[in-house]
């Protein structure tokens, strides 16, 4: 056959057309994409047996039930536990990222000791014996009271083990990290006579008056509050948000009332003024179950007329009057306070003023109201036997000054500790345990906190993560994370019923970590005598199981125990004050003195603006930092690259010559930082807001070095009535960078 030009071209063109019409090119592109996607470095998740384990999340005081999805012995996903009384299937962003806190790079993988400024591996036995030696030495010098412990909570077996250890060792210095729990507990103590905590029956309330509380920004138990909020939407409940900034809560509320920051307490008294003047209060409660009303009434009527309050708060008189009427006329109104997520206690007088509103409308220990709950009573350990060294140590006053002198009512005053240590010649704290908390990040004026901690000769951190406090510790004795350990989870922040959760090991410990409870028991045993005898358990698990007794089986099976039939005591039995009635006033703290809004630190001339923090669900701002997934969700108007954006009203920005996305220098009396500017109409002119939860120096590369820690820019302001930190903001100035 002769191949001429014509047949050659026909063959080539025909071949090309044929190939194009055949599946070959499609097959080739398909194969090509497959070939170019299978590289050895792409992980192929291994398959295995699926199982689910119910447990409780302990990443915040919310106490949500979780269902952990496992493949063989790996945690693949954490979901909300269906049917759990607190969260019923819902889960927050931090809980969802929990697996990253198990497998992440921020874990401390073995016990570490700081030698010449660098961490070196050490065995568990060596570490415990070295610490034990130091403690024995202090005790033999009669300085047992110079040992302190900072914990994130004072309820549950782990904090109780620390407390017990300190007591039998001879130190009264167990300190809980500050939060609105402090103020609410004190309010309940002074007004209700109840030693315990508040429960808020939010699900049944139909009118929530929130004084800057982040109802859906993480206040209380976050998921529970979200659910309650959705209920109010469905059932016509009202939320009124009083706050200087348009937070998510303010945006979702039925009415946002912008208020001059720090003046919330004056507004509460102003509302009381109208309610009393128009006789809208619950006279049955006020006349029969309260004392001090007449004196308090005079105080409110004289000093808090709508005109005066309008001037203090910046809220229109008519708004105040109609708000008071709406509140008093609602069938189950509830007033709550504690700013944002509640990381700062706040002014006691403000808390008492807000709680007095609940009393005026008689919504105490009632459906939809505030309930005074007693402390949980499931921990009943054998009576302590103490030697003379312990008794001597326990007679020393607390280093933070709580419970005596100026502040007889306060239980813990961690906010005062850094200053006390820094101003002393020799640190009054010689050894410090830190557990379930990260004070070098969460306390105001971080620089002075770090300075104080560096003056303490022995700091032991039990953090499972390399956080800011662990970084400056002398020993890190890493605890298991919540997915690896047993722990009881005592009543949840703001939950209205007694409940105990059980966090249990979902997987085996990933690293050479040890349960903090076991470390304390071992430490006590190594010290012998009375101290060893105070801990009659072999292991922490043994201790926990004995403590929980007949609840153990329910807890292991269900994950929680609750008294679902619980009802708060009636008015006649509900108050354990001296008068057995609700007390509107308290002379010991001089509660009838003029309410003067807490002034932010700094003079107005050099610092014309006011800087306030804001809380967001997407930024964990407590003792745990954001895992990679959570920080990924942070908007680019909050964090851009490594820069934090501060919110400022466009009018204020214009005056300062600042534009969107531009750099600016932010200065407060405590420090300064380079920030970017984000114009936001939802913030009061003259005020700038900054998110909490950024500016970590520790943790992993996904979190460290991003933004500024708000606590570096603010210092504590002591409440004259309670000693707690009441700082809600600080004076600031902002200038073009």
């Amino acid at each position, binding site marked *: 056959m002769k191949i001429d030009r014509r047949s050659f071209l026909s063959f080539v063109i025909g071949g090309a057309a044929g190939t194009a019409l055949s599946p070959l090119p499609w097959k080739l592109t398909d194969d090509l994409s497959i070939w170019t996607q299978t*590289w050895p470095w792409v992980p192929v998740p291994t398959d295995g047996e699926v199982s689910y384990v119910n447990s409780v999340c302990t990443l915040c005081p919310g106490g949500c039930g979780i269902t952990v999805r496992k493949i063989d012995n790996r945690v693949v996903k954490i979901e909300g536990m269906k049917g759990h009384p607190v969260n019923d299937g819902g889960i927050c962003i931090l809980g969802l*990222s929990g697996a990253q806190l198990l497998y992440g790079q921020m874990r401390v993988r073995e016990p570490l000791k700081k030698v010449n400024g660098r961490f070196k591996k050490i065995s568990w036995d060596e570490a415990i014996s070295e610490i034990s030696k130091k403690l024995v030495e202090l005790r033999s010098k009669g300085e047992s009271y110079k040992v302190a412990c900072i914990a994130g909570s004072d309820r549950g077996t782990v904090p109780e083990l620390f407390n017990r250890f300190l007591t039998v060792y001879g130190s009264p210095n167990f300190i809980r990290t500050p939060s609105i729990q402090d103020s609410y507990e004190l309010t309940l103590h002074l007004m209700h006579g109840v030693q315990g905590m508040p429960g808020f029956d939010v699900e049944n309330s139909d009118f929530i008056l929130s004084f800057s509380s982040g109802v859906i920004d993480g206040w209380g138990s976050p998921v529970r509050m979200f659910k309650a909020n959705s209920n109010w939407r469905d059932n016509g409940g009202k939320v009124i948000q009083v706050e200087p900034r348009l937070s998510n809560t303010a945006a*979702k509320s039925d009415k946002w009332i912008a208020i001059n920051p720090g003046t919330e307490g004056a507004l509460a008294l102003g509302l009381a003024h109208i309610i009393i003047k128009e006789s809208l209060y619950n006279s049955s409660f006020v006349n029969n179950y309260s004392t001090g009303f007449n004196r308090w009434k005079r105080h409110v009527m004289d000093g808090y007329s709508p005109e005066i309050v309008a001037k203090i708060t910046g809220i229109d008189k008519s708004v105040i009057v109609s708000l008071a009427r709406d509140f008093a006329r609602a069938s189950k109104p509830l007033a709550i306070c504690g700013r944002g997520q509640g990381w700062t206690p706040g002014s006691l007088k403000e808390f008492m003023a807000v709680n007095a509103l609940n009393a005026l409308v008689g919504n105490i220990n009632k459906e939809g109201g505030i309930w005074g709950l007693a402390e949980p009573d499931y921990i009943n350990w054998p009576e302590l036997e103490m030697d003379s060294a312990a008794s001597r140590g326990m007679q020393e006053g607390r280093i933070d000054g709580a419970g005596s002198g100026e502040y007889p009512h306060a239980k813990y005053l961690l906010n005062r500790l850094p200053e006390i240590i820094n101003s002393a010649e020799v640190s009054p704290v010689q050894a410090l345990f830190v557990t379930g908390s990260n004070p070098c990040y969460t306390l105001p004026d971080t620089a002075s906190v770090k300075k104080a901690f560096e003056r303490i000769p022995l700091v032991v951190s039990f953090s499972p993560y390399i956080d800011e406090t662990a970084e400056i510790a002398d020993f890190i004795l890493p605890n298991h994370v919540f997915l690896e350990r047993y722990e009881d989870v005592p009543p949840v922040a703001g939950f209205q019923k007694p409940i105990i959760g059980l966090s249990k090991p979902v997987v085996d410990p990933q690293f050479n970590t040890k349960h903090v409870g076991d470390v304390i028991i071992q430490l006590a045993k190594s010290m012998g005598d009375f101290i060893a005898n105070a801990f009659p358990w072999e292991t922490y698990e043994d201790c926990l199981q004995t403590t929980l007794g007949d609840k153990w089986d329910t807890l292991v099976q269900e994950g929680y125990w609750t008294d679902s039939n619980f009802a708060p005591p009636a008015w006649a039995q509900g108050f354990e004050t001296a008068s057995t009635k609700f007390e509107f006033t308290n002379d010991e703290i001089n509660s009838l003195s003029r309410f003067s809004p807490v002034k932010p630190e700094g003079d107005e001339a050099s610092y014309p603006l006011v800087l306030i923090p804001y809380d967001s669900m997407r930024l964990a701002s407590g003792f745990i930092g954001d895992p990679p997934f959570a920080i990924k969700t942070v908007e680019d108007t909050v964090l851009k690259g490594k820069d934090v954006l501060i919110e400022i009203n466009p009018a204020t920005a214009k005056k300062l010559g600042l534009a969107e996305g531009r750099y600016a220098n932010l200065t407060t009396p405590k420090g300064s930082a380079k920030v970017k500017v984000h114009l936001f109409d939802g913030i009061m002119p003259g005020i700038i807001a900054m998110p909490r939860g950024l500016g970590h120096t520790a943790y992993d590369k996904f979190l460290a070095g991003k933004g500024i820690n708000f606590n570096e820019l603010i210092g504590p302001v002591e409440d004259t009535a309670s000693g707690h930190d009441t700082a809600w903001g600080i004076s600031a100035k902002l200038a073009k960078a």
Partner: protein
Amino acid sequence: MKQEKAKKYGMVIDLDKCTGCGSCMVACMAENNVPFREDESDKLLSIAWMRVYKLTNGKPFPDTDICYLPRPCMHCEGHHGHSPCVSVCPATATDYSEETGIVSQIYTRCFGCRYCMAACPYHVRLFNWWDPVWPDGMEKSLSPNVSVRMRGVVEKCSFCFHRYQLTMDKAHMEGRRELEEDEYQTACTQACPAGAITFGDLNNPKHTVYRMVKPDHKQGGKPKNPKAFRLLERLGTNPKVYYLTSREWVRSMDDNYLKNESK
């Protein structure tokens, strides 16, 4: 066995309940092996199948208002399954399922031309500019139900299709052809602490999603509930994600309107 009726899985998001907390985003990331990088603040490059947008009414203080809008893939039906992305894909890597109404994405077929990204009016499609990297040990939390995507591949929300497959497998094992309403739910729906997301079959009048929006299937599923709207309704993409709101200014953000144009 009787041929089962075609499903049209869709989602209703109540913007009055959404708190902008971000749970849906992370639930999705954890469920679908979504990678993460050191800096995720460039949102054009950040891979998030579910993204929560913050809307502002633009009024000055104190009349300002904000609202959050979670945005998964809309799983557009277009006309007869011609969703914008499906019609442009040269690799048949994305397809509209008449059986479930889900727009699929087959990663191993995708060769990264990104036509679909240009075609999608909702920005739901994301491109892997880098290989995904899980720091040592973190690969343990990867789920075997969803494959890990490579550099050069487009990915997007699948309405957790693997969950559909798993529940269908289970149903078939039990001799059933139909799923209960709550059997197949997406990860974001399940996680939402505010209960703002509802998921179900828009063809089934018994399902909550149907009762919430009352889709008019003769008009491409346009909602009959006046509180409900879909994004960019006028494009005719016939999306299957509906939003509910009681705030007029939020509703008016469903599309781009000219100044003197009435809705």
